[in-house]
């Protein structure tokens, strides 16, 4: 069962809620996840995936959809169900392909940050080249080594939570305090990463 705020919404209401900011946005993510969770069973019957594989495909579908809904890439031309099922189907096919070609999982985050795209071509290629040389596993490892509060703060930041939202979630006095602490954590992460 869900918490008190879980009522049945139509597509437009779900999309509206997912796009709004606020400390309760996780609840709308859970609602979306629960609504189409029966896809997992379809992945098992139609694509002969194991339950774990099908669950992976479904949760990746939800994460991709959340990103697309929030950055307005989803234009609601099709119903949410059709849109999600299309992504889910592609994820299942990808999984089957990976299974047959024995590809190892890629540790580098898949999508190119929207922020990188803000740079013009020349500057972007300089930065991109340096990012390509980054040791992503090491960076992830160092992120895990940060103290709880720092790691949580950076994780929320990576999930596009505003400093105001982080302040409410982690009970900081205000957004300014979060920003200062977050940048300090980022600096600490950098020092850990450089020290190897």
């Amino acid at each position, binding site marked *: 069962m869900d918490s008190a705020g879980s009522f049945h919404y139509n597509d437009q209401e779900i999309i509206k809620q997912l796009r709004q900011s606020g400390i309760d946005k996780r609840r709308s993510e859970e609602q979306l996840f629960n609504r189409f969770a029966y896809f997992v069973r379809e992945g098992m019957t139609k694509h002969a995936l194991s339950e774990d594989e099908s669950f992976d495909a479904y949760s990746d579908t939800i994460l991709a959809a959340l990103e697309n809904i929030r950055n307005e890439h989803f234009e609601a031309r099709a119903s949410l169900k059709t849109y999600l099922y299309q992504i889910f189907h592609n994820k299942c096919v990808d999984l089957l392909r990976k299974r047959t070609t024995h590809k190892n999982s890629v540790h580098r985050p898949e999508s190119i*940050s929207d922020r990188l795209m803000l740079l013009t071509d020349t500057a972007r290629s300089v930065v991109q080249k340096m990012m390509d040389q980054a040791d992503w596993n090491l960076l992830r490892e160092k992120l895990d080594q940060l103290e709880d509060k720092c790691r949580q703060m950076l994780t929320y930041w990576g999930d596009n939570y505003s400093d105001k939202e982080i302040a409410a979630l982690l009970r900081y006095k205000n957004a300014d305090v979060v920003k200062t602490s977050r940048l300090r954590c980022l600096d600490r992460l950098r020092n850990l990463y450089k020290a190897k």
Partner: protein
Amino acid sequence: MDNLDYIESYFTDEPDPVRTREFENRIESDPAFAEQVAFYLSAFQVSGEAARIVKKEHFKEIYKKNHIAGPGPVRKLVYYMAAAAVVAGMVFGIYTYVKSVSPKQLADRYVNGHLQTLGVTMSGRSDNLQTGLRLYNEGRYEEALLQFEKIIRSDTSLFTAKEYAGIAALRLKEYNKALSYFEQLEIYNGLYANPALILQAVTLMERNQPGDAAKAKQLLKRIVDQDLEGKELAQEWLRKL
């Protein structure tokens, strides 16, 4: 750290042509600065990836809890039994539907159906709110209420803690306390899903004192008129009351 602040402002503040030129020239001419920009963006991506992993773990918890995929083909018998139960439920449902339903019965059904367990937060780490949620989900309502009240004392602005404290009080049949918390929720206008009014209505219907049903009905009408959280449920209940 100064550079990190400067780098972040470039990516998050409104674009400014002069500053953009200056920033990008610096990337091209100063490798140490370019490296810091690359680190900032890499850290952002790795943090985003970490968030995705935490979310997937959280989804897994929800999924396991709800047993959404159901059993495999070898356990088809369970489906048949479930189907039989559904048919029996429908027969019972039709029977009870044609009978008049009291506000208390509606509230009971809601509390037992929707407030049995509360969703846990994403972090997966030991945080005070999560401890309260765990206690609640284990049926330890008194301890959960104490935990939520402890959080409220340390930060009176925390919406979620007040909502959960009210729900825990409702489960303990401490109706006045529950109402007080749900009334406090009303001030949080900025939230997209504020269940303050529907929870007040449920509490009044559960308390069932003289005049409570009428007050609950007024609240339900307000929810429908103002298109607030729980509108569909309010409409359904208004039809039945």
